[in-house]
């Protein structure tokens, strides 16, 4: 089994901020917008270097989405920044009409997704955003797993034409994917080959999936781990190829089981290769205040939950 090493814990949002600093230098058409959360989105360096290409919209997310749509008319590439909750649910119709239906090249960059936002509680912890965004025709949905990958994804979407939802998080988590990796939108990454079960994870759950696979190996179970950083378009070929070998699958995500990655996988497999599946996700519930790690444990989103799901789904083969 391939070993992955944590290069030092870091937050995915810093990957976004550091990529924005680079894009400021390399992409003169990139414009950053923020709704009163500059420090949280880690974009102060971009602002210091390019004040003319930063737009502070204040606490007015609907206006931010509309302004972003307008900036594309004239050739700019706007990156909007706020929490995932305020990037999606709060402004769904603005995104739907002014960005998605209008085909605007806006990058909706959303931090603090999921329960790992922590102590602020359920008002701020959106667990429905992947579903909301993936249902919009033409929207690309990306949920990278660590600092390095978030940085790479941010750089990649600047060169991609079309609306993108880029989801990342607040806490410092393991940083284990290669530095300066090339990010290919829509291409699943096979992290660990296995024969007994496929674990398809996204975002913070990818590291947990690797931990689960390591533990399962000790019990004689060979788990294949796939990093699904792009939920839409989904790498259907990679998933089908994997389950043809393993015969069962666990999907893992920091999101409601309704509307998330798991449902996208279930749909794909129902059409192409019906396969027993278990869902590691929140169970149609809101989150609550607490320390991120404890919330992950309580809501069944850690490596123990993945391991338990594997043991269950293997029995259904």
């Amino acid at each position, binding site marked *: 089994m391939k070993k992955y090493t944590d290069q030092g814990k870091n937050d995915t949002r810093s990957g976004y901020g550091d990529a924005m600093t680079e894009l400021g230098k390399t992409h003169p058409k990139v414009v950053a917008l923020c709704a009163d959360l500059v420090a949280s989105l880690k974009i102060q360096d971009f602002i210091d270097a390019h004040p003319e290409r930063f737009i502070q*919209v204040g606490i007015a997310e609907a206006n931010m989405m*509309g302004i972003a749509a*307008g900036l594309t*008319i*004239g*050739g700019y590439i706007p990156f909007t920044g706020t929490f995932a909750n305020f990037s999606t649910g709060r402004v769904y119709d603005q995104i739907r009409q002014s960005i998605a239906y209008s085909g605007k090249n806006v990058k909706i960059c959303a931090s603090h997704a999921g329960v790992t936002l922590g102590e602020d509680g359920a008002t701020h912890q959106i667990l429905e955003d992947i579903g909301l965004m993936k249902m919009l025709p033409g929207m690309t949905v990306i949920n990278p797993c660590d600092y390095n990958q978030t940085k790479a994804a941010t750089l990649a979407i600047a060169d991609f034409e079309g609306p993108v939802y880029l989801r990342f998080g607040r806490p410092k988590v393991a940083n284990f994917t290669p530095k300066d990796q090339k990010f290919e939108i829509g291409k699943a990454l096979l992290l660990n080959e296995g024969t007994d079960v496929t674990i398809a994870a996204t975002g913070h759950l990818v590291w947990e999936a690797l931990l689960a696979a390591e533990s399962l190996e000790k019990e004689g179970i060979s788990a294949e781990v796939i990093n699904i950083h792009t939920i839409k378009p989904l790498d259907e070929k990679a998933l089908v190829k994997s389950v043809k070998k393993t015969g069962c699958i666990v999907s893992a995500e920091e999101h409601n089981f309704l509307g998330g990655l798991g449902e996208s996988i279930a749909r794909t497999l129902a059409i192409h290769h019906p396969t027993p599946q278990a869902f590691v996700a929140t169970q149609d519930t809101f989150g609550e205040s607490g320390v991120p790690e404890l919330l992950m444990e309580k809501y069944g989103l850690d490596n123990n939950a993945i391991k338990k799901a594997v043991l269950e789904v293997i029995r259904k083969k």
Partner: protein
Amino acid sequence: MPQLQELNDLVLQVRRDILRMVHKVNSGHPGGSLGCTEFFVSLYFEIMNLKKGFDLDGIGEDIFFLSNGHISPVFYSVLARKGYFPIKELDTFRLINSRLQGHPTTHEGLPGIRVASGSLGQGMSVAIGAALAKKLNKDPNLVFSLHGDGELQEGQNWEAIMFAAGNRVDNLIATIDRNGQQIDGATEEVLPLGDVRRKFEAFGWDVFELTNGNDLEAVIAGLKEAKSRTGKGKPVCMVMHTEMGHGVDFMMHTHAWHGKAPNDEQLKIALAQNEETLGDY
């Protein structure tokens, strides 16, 4: 520059287009369209600096956004009469496989449209974004937008109004169609807007009122006045008083024709009040 007579002919012909379009499909919004006919004709045939042809970015020309997308009939007619697409295509309004959707969209690639609108209250934000892009591009041309008065009940407008003043978006001219009507009745009965001019002023805009938005010469003068106020640190707002349904006697002084098409007999009467000048499509 077209003569006043030519513009008057256009106004009459556009009104006929609007009436015939909504009649054919027995749907659409004639009231606000008829009320804003002078505005659209003035804007596209007299006021805006426009390039030949159409590209989405609109760099090097004035651009326009319609926020209250339901008055698409007047927008489509004026775009067609200006040459953005064949006049004959007006005949496909609201039909399946048409580029002339019920509400304007970029989705079907209709030249002249730069963003979808219809879900209300979003156009001012988009217009501000486009105005900021013009500033970044050092493009001295202007951004025009039109908003229904009822639409100001949507909160996003006030986010946008606050932003535009605070950020000195002075290359934007937002016109409010102050016809005082919305679907359920008079705006002041449904949800009072109060003094729109003073509200914009309080937010920091340069505002003036145009009392007769259905007088062609007055509208042209008003838009010229608005242009003269740009570039001075404040966004410009023209509160334009119009009569919903203007040009058709039985459609005026009521909100009844906001979103209702005339029947055969009503169409005949309405067309008789608006002479065919440039040829029906």
